[in-house]
């Protein structure tokens, strides 16, 4: 366990260096979004890759975090409380939704459908709030056009001390590193072990006297809170929130990040998110070929050629090329146990 945390710290330090150097190559404004998407991908990577919960509606928590922040910021002004609400509300909502699903013993694809439908519900509802009757406090929900013009993140206690530009990038980068380390710590704790055990064999864990439903609900809620954090950061970055955040496309994109990056790892989804989001950004600067077509082709090829994702595939290749034959024999299957998974 201690070894895992040491490893996680090493990953965090390397990432910190990469994140600190990155602005030399890509504008911090774009980088900020990549980092926010990284946090969002991490939230699904945690509950799907380690908890075995396939959520088709991670976008619901992302959007909910962003809307909560925007609405609270309009009503309150100073950003500290809205920021905390932007994490707390998705956490509570995920807890309620998770309890409903897990205590109902919903499984695999049906769980996927419920989360998808809930996301669609948000999408539909938010899209239909253009009328003046949809107001929370002084905040108009705005329908399809969303909510612009709210107070963006400020230095706590100083409403005019906006955090923006490079400073905002470093703030999100630090947030990503903290979330990563916290999640690593969580996974190394007994709670994390048991969560992974539930994914492996829910019945066995129940027969040992653990309440799998409560634990899955809690894990799901933590995933919701992290997605909410990503949404909150996004709101401050974009300075507008729109129902598109709840869309099917947004949900699917998060799943794709995880698949392309590599499920069962934490770094994988983050890297997947950053690569694909940057690709989308880069594709928008050319008009030779339709961008939708390119993204579709990439997705198909990834599923067919690298079903485990970029990071685990690269990891295996690297390990193979560095491994000496005499140490290879007695090791256990790569990527199989929690201890092994912790390396990526």
């Amino acid at each position, binding site marked *: 366990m201690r070894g895992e945390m040491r490893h996680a710290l090493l990953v965090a330090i390397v990432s910190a260096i990469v994140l600190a150097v990155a602005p030399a190559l890509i504008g911090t404004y774009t980088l900020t979004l990549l980092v926010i998407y990284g946090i969002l991908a991490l939230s699904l990577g945690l509950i799907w890759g380690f908890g075995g919960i396939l959520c088709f509606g991670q976008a619901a928590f992302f959007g909910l975090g962003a809307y909560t922040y925007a609405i609270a910021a309009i009503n309150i002004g100073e950003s500290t409380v809205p920021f905390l609400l932007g994490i707390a509300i998705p956490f509570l909502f995920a807890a309620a939704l998770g309890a409903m699903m897990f205590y109902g013993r919903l499984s695999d694809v049906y769980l996927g459908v419920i989360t998808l439908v809930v996301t669609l519900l948000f999408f539909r509802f938010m899209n239909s709030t253009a009328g003046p009757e949809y107001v929370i406090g002084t905040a108009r929900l705005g329908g399809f056009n969303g909510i612009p013009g709210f107070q963006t993140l400020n230095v706590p206690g100083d409403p005019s001390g906006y955090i923006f530009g490079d400073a905002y990038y470093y703030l999100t980068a630090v947030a990503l590193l903290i979330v990563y380390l916290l999640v690593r710590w969580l996974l190394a704790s007994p709670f994390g072990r048991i969560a*992974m055990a539930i994914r*492996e*064999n829910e019945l066995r864990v129940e027969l040992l*006297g653990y309440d799998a439903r409560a634990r899955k609900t809690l894990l799901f809620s933590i995933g919701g809170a992290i997605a909410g954090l990503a949404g909150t950061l996004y709101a401050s970055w974009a300075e507008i929130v729109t129902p598109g955040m709840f869309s099917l496309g947004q949900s699917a994109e998060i799943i794709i990040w995880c698949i392309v990056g590599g499920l069962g790892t934490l770094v994988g989804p983050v890297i997947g998110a950053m690569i694909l989001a940057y690709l989308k950004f880069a594709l928008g600067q050319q008009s030779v070929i339709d961008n939708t077509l390119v993204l579709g082709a990439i997705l198909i090829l990834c599923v067919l050629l690298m079903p485990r994702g970029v990071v685990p595939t690269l990891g295996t290749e690297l390990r193979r090329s560095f491994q000496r034959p005499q140490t290879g024999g007695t090791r*256990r299957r790569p990527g199989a*146990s929690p201890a092994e998974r912790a390396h990526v």
Partner: protein
Amino acid sequence: MSDSVVQTRGLTMRFGGVTAVDNVDFSLRRNELRCLIGPNGAGKSTFFKCITGMLKATSGEVWINGHETTTWDPHQVARLGVGIKTQVPSVLDGFTVRENVWLAAHRVTAADGVASRVAEAMERLAVSSLANSVVGSLSHGERQRVELSMILASRPWLVLLDEPAAGLTAAEIATLGEIVTDISRDAAVVIVEHDMQFIRSIAGLVTVFAQGRILMEDQVDKVMADARVREVYLGRKN
């Protein structure tokens, strides 16, 4: 009655039109070793699942150690101090043996005692040498032992085993007999089993199921000699 640790009253389980368990009254004393036998489809496994909470009975009651557990979930039953082994070895294939046993010990032990508890449980089932192997790579017999080791690590006073001898070699069955006898020294044990050889080797009281009901209940030798049992059970089993 009062010293019963497991008791069912009128326990009935129906699936659609089929009654798998039909109005069964069953009772088990503290520290007793009991075998449930019967031909395929006699309802013994369904009965087992009703006791463990994996199935919820259609009607009737289940009492464990003074609690009515009829509608409880498996984890609640387990929390009473009940160790449960399912028919197919239910282990965590992606985890190592040590991690598997740790999971069982963690819930019932203070943090500083977990390591020694894990070591002790692995020692008793002779899986210590496999401690760092991934369970998915082990043989069927080894996996059965890992599962039993997990049950021991959770230090139960009641152990429910569903066909522990299934798929084991003769030598492994002999070892299993010793293990079960060892377990039954400080816990009540219920075993659902097909293998008569194995049941003989652990002796004890036997309950015979047929068509969802209890046909008879007696010492193993008497049961073996009974004509009705031969007819419904041994007859079909050759």
